[in-house]
């Protein structure tokens, strides 16, 4: 319903934000990532430069193996580039220690993956509170986790279920709740609807779009043009190069 119109309604919001905060939330400067393999080096990212302003909703599209996940992982401080520089809110990350990168992921970034999003040993609510209990008390973490899970419209009865006992759509809601629980600046989703049927996928996209309207910067990888339509900017990548 709003899918066609968000551009009209909120098109000014990101630029407004960009104007107020001088630094972009993400800046790639000539970033390359090369995986050395016995069969020869794989260039997953080839001299990529881009800027993401706070509040943007970006879809990353491209064929399989083109480097979308690699790009998203770099944005999420999961890996550092082979060459080039990445700035997260003006902070250069490629020289950071593993512990510092981990702390950034824990406190400022939310991840949603296509699969294997949840820790099987933990219940839904425990999965959501996981990033919080690493630093905060269990009691307040629990409250916050429940609050976010309710925002995802997950039935209270499912909170204590283990991931194996949840449907794919429910699992993704829990995963999004987990990604949002630390109130991140940046929400990164790698094919969040890739394993879902279209109806469930639409619901999930609704949640992401709503989060973006709330002001969250959302970057998602997708194959699906219908899904990409939710975003206000699309980055296309082929063979590790932006096109």
């Amino acid at each position, binding site marked *: 319903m709003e899918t066609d119109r968000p551009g009209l309604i909120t098109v000014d919001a990101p630029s407004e934000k960009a104007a107020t905060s001088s630094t972009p939330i993400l800046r790639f400067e000539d970033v390359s990532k090369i995986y050395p393999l016995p069969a020869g080096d794989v260039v997953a990212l080839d001299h990529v430069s881009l800027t993401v302003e706070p509040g943007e909703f970006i879809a990353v599209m491209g064929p399989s193996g083109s480097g979308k996940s690699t790009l998203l992982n770099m944005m999420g401080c999961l890996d550092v580039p082979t060459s080039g520089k990445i700035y997260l809110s003006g902070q250069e990350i490629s020289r950071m220690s*593993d512990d510092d990168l981990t702390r950034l992921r824990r406190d400022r970034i939310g991840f949603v993956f296509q699969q294997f999003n949840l*820790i099987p040993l933990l219940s839904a609510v425990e999965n959501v509170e996981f990033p919080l209990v690493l630093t905060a008390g269990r009691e307040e973490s629990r409250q916050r986790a429940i609050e976010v899970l309710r925002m995802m419209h997950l039935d209270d009865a499912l909170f204590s279920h283990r991931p194996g006992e949840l449907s794919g759509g429910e699992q993704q809601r829990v995963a999004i709740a*987990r990604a949002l629980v630390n109130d991140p600046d940046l929400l990164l989703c790698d094919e969040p609807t890739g394993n879902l049927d279209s109806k469930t996928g639409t619901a999930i996209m609704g949640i992401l779009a709503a989060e973006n309207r709330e002001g969250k910067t959302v970057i998602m990888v997708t194959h699906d043009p219908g899904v990409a339509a939710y975003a206000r900017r699309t980055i296309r990548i082929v063979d590790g190069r932006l096109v």
Partner: protein
Amino acid sequence: MIFLDLAVRNLKRHKVRSVLATVGIIIGVVAIASLGIMGSSLSVLVGGMVSDVSDTLLVTPHLAISSGDPFDPRNTLAARISGRDLGLIEKAAEQHRVIPMILASDRLQVRDKGGYVALYAMPATEIPFLLEEEAGTYPRAGSSGVMVGSLLADELDLHPGSRIEVGGESVRVAGIAAERGMGIDINPDYALIVTEEWYTERHGDQDYSRVIVKVGDLAEIEEVKVAIDQQVNRRKEVVDVLDSREILEIYYETFDAINIFLIGIGAVSLLVASVSILNVMIISVTERTGEIGLMRSIGARRREVLLMFLYESLILGIAGSLAGGVVSMAIAYSVTTSVAGLFADFAVSGGDGIPVAVVIGYTAFAMAFGTAVSIVAGFYPAWKAARLNPIEALRYE
């Protein structure tokens, strides 16, 4: 403690695997503790004989193949010390007391019980010198009375005045010797002590099986020993002269070796157990690679992942060590008594058992070792888990 929680849950998820790894540790801990306790049981038994014999020289017939160990069965070969050699020994020993004795055995029948018993025959005047009296009198030269070792008397319910049959002849019990314990000179507690006359009247004149020299002053032991050696072994080796410290050293070396060997066996079983922990942990890390990648990507630090896996092996180790400790304590008692029972023939301390401190000490050592071994075994897999690259871990199928 979310990571401790996760460790516990993962162990519970794989109950059989966890229990088996724990059983390995239990076995290892029990092996170390009980073998250690058993080893020190032996040492305690030996320790019982250290007491009052440090002034003793033991002269035994020299055998080409003998080791000089008085309990070496080869010493029972029929070599003897002649009266002439005894004279030489007495000469060399000067003022020190020289006690020649014949070791034999004879059939003993008391009421309906019968069997062979060790017999010590020595001059009547020397008996009071070697043995304390518990009841009755020392056997006198010319009388047919015999003295009975304390434990033998207890077992057969003998008292001064009781009649026993020795070698088919009915004799009177003159006295009961006080319990003496295992000694390097004599072990009379399960033996009969008779006068030399008593023995030679019945079995004819005999050479001596061994000669004991009591050297009053410890400082003179070496001197007397050399003197005897020079006197008797002038032309050829006739006797071996051992002082009690030398003999004790032989024992201690032997028992130390046994003890180390026993603990070594226990340690090997714990090492085997640690390999099974290593195995379980490597499986666990491999299975959970994706999970590790996820945890790392949402903010778990390397050291937290390391801890999570270390907790797992630590829990296995602590659980195994605790259970093993309890089992060790439980069987320590029976091990102690059975070992003591085995050696009761030699040992006065047999009934005393093993000091509680020794049991606790070995058990604590085994538990600490078990826990330490588990941590060490868990460290490598935990370290590997912590080093995983989150992206590669996430991509892992």
